[in-house]
């Protein structure tokens, strides 16, 4: 294992920047891309290049997620002397035309261009995804990779790093929004012979895939963020906890960790300092509750993923009983940029107590489904209509849902609200990890509430009664209402069980499970009463 120095890092960077081919074609090979046949596109591109003898200056590369999975296979074409073009839906059978018109004929194929809707976006977390080859260490370094780690280790003390994080105003992107710098400080302050850092990549919210995209598209940025967190908190050991349902993300992180060790960016005496840091991967096994930090810790310890009451918080007593700092993937991906560009720069983006950007997985009944990264303070309407292009079908947009099974629905009349942790909470939803699902007039809110509640009932670990019993009872009432057999008193029962669950459940899963029901009841009570025969003139029925 080599010892990395700042000079060496800069040399690798310069060399990588100098190695530029005249024609580069990048294909998105993330889960979404592969699902749409991008692997076949890649093979076809290589074959076509060989056939036409343009192999010398030509390079077909993989790249990470563009975040616009609905348009996959996405192909990015760079030909020297021409503007870059990003094409949508380039299936293998379109490759020949791509060569003929663009690469040989040097003409942009206008009708294939991916619709650009980036004006309102600002890419910090997604700065590299879809741009660099996620399996290339040099590509990451060429894009300022590991400069922040060098700066932290060589120019700053751990306390300075923590102060910078606190000044930046960065808050946890996993959903709860706890200030990251404060979390680091609490972990550091707890006296112990051993501390741990964990990257929470257990992205369980159904309908969200920000973390998958970052892990698949830019794994080194998360490793770098985790290493900086380790330095700041005084940890020597870190874990990536990743869903087993994301095999490609696991593979990419594995490769990136190996490369980081090879170049001396993980392991002993990093950058020749006294700081040593080891990283390992642990897989989830299909339990939503394991996104909750105490349950996640139990799972890494090889036990059932049962949560336990806090305090003690993991920063005091966490993994194997030692102080532990758990940060979400998106949070960690922000960190290298904050250190490089400075806290003042970061805190100039956003609003009030919500700084920086947030990545959303914009899906459902929206025209341009995909990942979007916007400065905090962007309005929901801008996200759904300007970036997302409005509804996908003929029906009007009725509401969006944020925060997944722990969140709530926000009806269209509130779409002019600027996105921030506090604003979404005021509306009865939460920021959550970043799922944003658009619903139109054809979607039944009662059915959606049942969908989310059913999810939480399935995923309840069963340890505490309010969650285990309450969820099941509520589901029963929702089914009764959907079957057209509801009674007016059922709505009160739903509300009172909801409040009991919110107050008495042990962990976040049970405390927030009623949110989708409460928020649909709040904004769309009529959809409930329409299905209750004694309250509605119209017959109930259609789901």
């Amino acid at each position, binding site marked *: 294992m080599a010892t990395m120095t700042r000079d060496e890092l800069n040399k690798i960077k310069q060399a990588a920047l100098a190695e530029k081919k005249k024609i580069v074609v990048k294909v998105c090979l993330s889960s979404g891309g592969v*699902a749409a046949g991008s692997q076949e596109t890649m093979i076809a591109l290589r074959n076509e290049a060989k056939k036409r003898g343009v192999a010398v200056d030509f390079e077909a590369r993989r790249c990470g997620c563009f975040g616009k999975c609905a348009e996959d296979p996405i192909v990015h074409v760079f030909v020297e002397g021409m503007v870059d073009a990003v094409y949508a839906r380039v299936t293998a059978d379109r490759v020949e035309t791509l060569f003929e018109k663009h690469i040989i004929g040097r003409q942009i194929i206008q009708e294939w261009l991916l619709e650009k809707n980036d004006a309102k976006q600002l890419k910090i977390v997604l700065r590299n995804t879809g741009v660099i080859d996620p399996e290339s260490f040099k590509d990451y370094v060429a894009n300022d990779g590991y400069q922040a780690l060098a700066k932290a280790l060589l120019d700053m003390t751990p306390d300075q790093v923590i102060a910078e994080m606190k000044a930046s105003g960065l808050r946890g992107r996993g959903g709860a929004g706890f200030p990251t710098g404060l979390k680091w400080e609490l972990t550091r302050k707890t006296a112990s012979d051993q501390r741990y850092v964990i990257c929470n990549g257990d992205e369980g919210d159904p*309908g969200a895939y920000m973390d998958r995209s970052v892990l698949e598209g830019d794994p080194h940025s998360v490793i770098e963020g985790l290493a900086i967190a380790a330095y700041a908190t005084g940890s020597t050991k870190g874990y990536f906890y990743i869903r087993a349902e994301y095999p490609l993300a696991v593979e990419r992180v594995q490769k990136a960790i190996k490369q980081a060790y090879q170049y001396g960016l993980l392991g002993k005496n990093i950058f020749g300092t006294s700081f040593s840091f080891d990283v390992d991967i642990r897989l989830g096994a299909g339990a939503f509750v394991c996104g909750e930090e105490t349950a996640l810790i139990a799972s890494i310890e090889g036990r059932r993923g049962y949560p336990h009451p806090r305090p003690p918080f993991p920063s005091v007593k966490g993994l194997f009983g030692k102080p532990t700092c758990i940060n979400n993937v998106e949070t960690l991906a922000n960190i290298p940029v904050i250190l490089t560009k400075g806290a003042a720069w970061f805190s100039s983006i956003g609003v009030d107590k919500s700084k920086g950007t947030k990545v959303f997985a914009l899906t459902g009944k929206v025209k341009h489904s995909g990942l979007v990264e916007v400065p905090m303070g962007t309005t929901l309407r801008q996200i759904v209509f300007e970036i997302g292009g409005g509804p996908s079908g003929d029906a009007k947009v009725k509401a969006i849902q944020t925060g997944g099974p722990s969140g709530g629905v926000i009806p269209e009349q509130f779409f002019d609200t600027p996105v921030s942790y506090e604003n979404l909470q005021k509306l009865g939803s939460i920021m959550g990890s970043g799922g944003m699902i658009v619903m139109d007039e054809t979607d039944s809110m009662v059915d959606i509430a049942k969908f989310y509640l059913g999810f939480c009932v399935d995923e309840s670990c069963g340890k505490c009664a309010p969650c285990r019993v309450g969820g099941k009872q509520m589901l029963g009432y929702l089914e009764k209402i959907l079957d057209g057999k509801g009674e007016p008193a059922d709505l009160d029962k739903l509300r009172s069980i909801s409040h009991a669950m919110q107050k008495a459940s042990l962990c976040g899963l049970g405390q927030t499970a009623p949110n989708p029901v409460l928020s649909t009841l709040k904004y769309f009570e009529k959809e409930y009463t329409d299905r209750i025969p004694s309250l509605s003139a119209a017959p109930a029925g259609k789901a």
Partner: protein
Amino acid sequence: MDRELIMKTVEEIVAPWENKEGNLIMILHQIQNRFSYVPREVSFEVAKRLNIPMARIYEVITFFNYFKLSPPGRHVISVCMGTACYLKGAKGLLTEIQEEIGLLPGQSTADKNFYLQMVRCLGCCGQAPVLTVGEKVYGRLVPGQVKNILAEYKAPAVEGAV
């Protein structure tokens, strides 16, 4: 199953993890990768090898959805039930599968050719609705396509390689 093969496999899998804290779930992952489920006789050997009670292994297997206690069919069909897929017709996919091969989630066909499960979000929401057969992902499905997809895997079948 051949006892010697089991012992050999368990040794191979357990040895690198032996002294690592919290190794059990990672060991079970590798066992399931190897056997497609976690066979009882293999669990016995793991318990012995790690010197832990069998109940420790079963409490973990039965908690996590990912681990299977019986062999699934040759082809595992996973229908994504994430929110985006749900809104865009995942329930219809389940109905079509049931009409075609008579399976409900959690069931295998009599010839063990297919096993059907629901999964919570594959992270391909832009392609909704999505299902996978083995490793192969089918996205942007519209009603009527399921029949043709399943036909690719009629027994005896060749794996849909990607």
